[in-house]
């Protein structure tokens, strides 16, 4: 190591602690200030059916990466099948189950792993995995080409949405140009989503 490199290394080591502290959990500002999105949550391992009378859009049947099948037309939304976990914790490490990647370094209270994928119907899927090792959660979000959006979240929380989830969803919404109904002003989308959930 050169003398110059040693000086620089020592100098960097002594960066003020407040920066080190703040940087430990810092995740960028892209999703920091966002309007809370209305999302359609479908509980894991349940069948969800939702009446959507009055809507007009092309029917679609889509397979989510988590294994669930969603049928969605202008009258109803029907989601069935057990949802496979998209993240697993093994030996203190977090793995993305689709390709068994070790994603531990990406996951914390405020940070997340993200995987984007477009299926043959042109529907974009975004997987987010985040949280501390004892509270790892994931979500799959589908962005349809006509502007609709569907998500399935499996979150290890009983209260507010985790920070990683809020930031990740906001960033994905922005990337795919999703405009929530209350901002877009599409009256036909203004309704309370209350899926009827029936246990298998």
């Amino acid at each position, binding site marked *: 190591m050169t003398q110059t490199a040693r000086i620089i290394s020592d100098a960097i080591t002594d960066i003020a*602690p407040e*920066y080190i502290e703040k*940087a430990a959990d810092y995740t*960028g500002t892209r999703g920091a200030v966002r309007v809370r999105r209305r999302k359609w949550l479908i509980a894991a391992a349940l069948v969800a059916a939702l009446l959507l009378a009055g809507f007009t859009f092309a029917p679609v049947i889509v397979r989510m990466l988590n294994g669930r099948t969603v049928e969605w037309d202008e009258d109803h939304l029907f989601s069935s099948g057990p949802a496979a976990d998209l993240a697993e914790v093994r030996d203190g490490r977090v793995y993305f189950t689709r390709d068994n990647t070790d994603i531990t370094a990406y996951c*914390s209270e405020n*940070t997340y792993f993200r995987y984007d994928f477009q299926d043959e119907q042109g529907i974009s899927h975004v997987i987010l995995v985040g949280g501390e090792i004892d509270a790892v959660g994931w979500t799959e979000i589908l962005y349809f080409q006509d502007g609709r959006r569907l998500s399935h979240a499996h979150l290890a929380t009983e209260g507010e949405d985790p920070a990683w989830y809020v930031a990740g969803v906001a960033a994905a919404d922005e990337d795919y140009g999703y405009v929530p109904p209350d901002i877009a002003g599409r009256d036909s989308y203004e309704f309370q989503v209350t899926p009827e959930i029936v246990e298998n």
Partner: protein
Amino acid sequence: MLEDSKIIALFFARAEEAIAALAEKYGAACGGIARNILKNSLDAEECVNDAYLAAWNTIPPQNPNPLKTYLFRIVRNLSIAKYHANTAGKRNSNYDVALEELEDCLAASGTVEQALDAKELSRQINRFLAGLDEESQMLFVRRYWYADGIPDLAARFQISGNNVSVRLSRLREKLRRHLRKEGYSL
């Protein structure tokens, strides 16, 4: 997970649960720092364990606040020391790449040794950071203190790898200008 104050209390009580609590709360982050520098999981684990021991040996009398920064600094120092002990002549970790970026930036004229010592350079870097927006501060610190790789930074900051590289390059140029403005002959 325990609050830091409770973990510190365990250290002061000489209760071995303190180490377990420390590992549970900060183990993953410590491992990440060590692996960024060492690129070797076994060495990284050893450094993290040594850092726990160092914490055990120094608390008390130390009562660090924040505990996280104190622990991370120990991990980083131990990892750098081990890295140099292991890899004389072999340079390939995120830490090396990050260091070389700054070396190229600061030592353009080859006169850093004469112009600055580490303490003065550190003071200047802190002043430089104080003048940046928060995201730039964090990008600089994650790259050069935590030795995060470009893909990790891209994921953390939700920007492309190319964007990360460009922004870091601009930050280094800003740092160079800052030092020149402060009268250092670079």
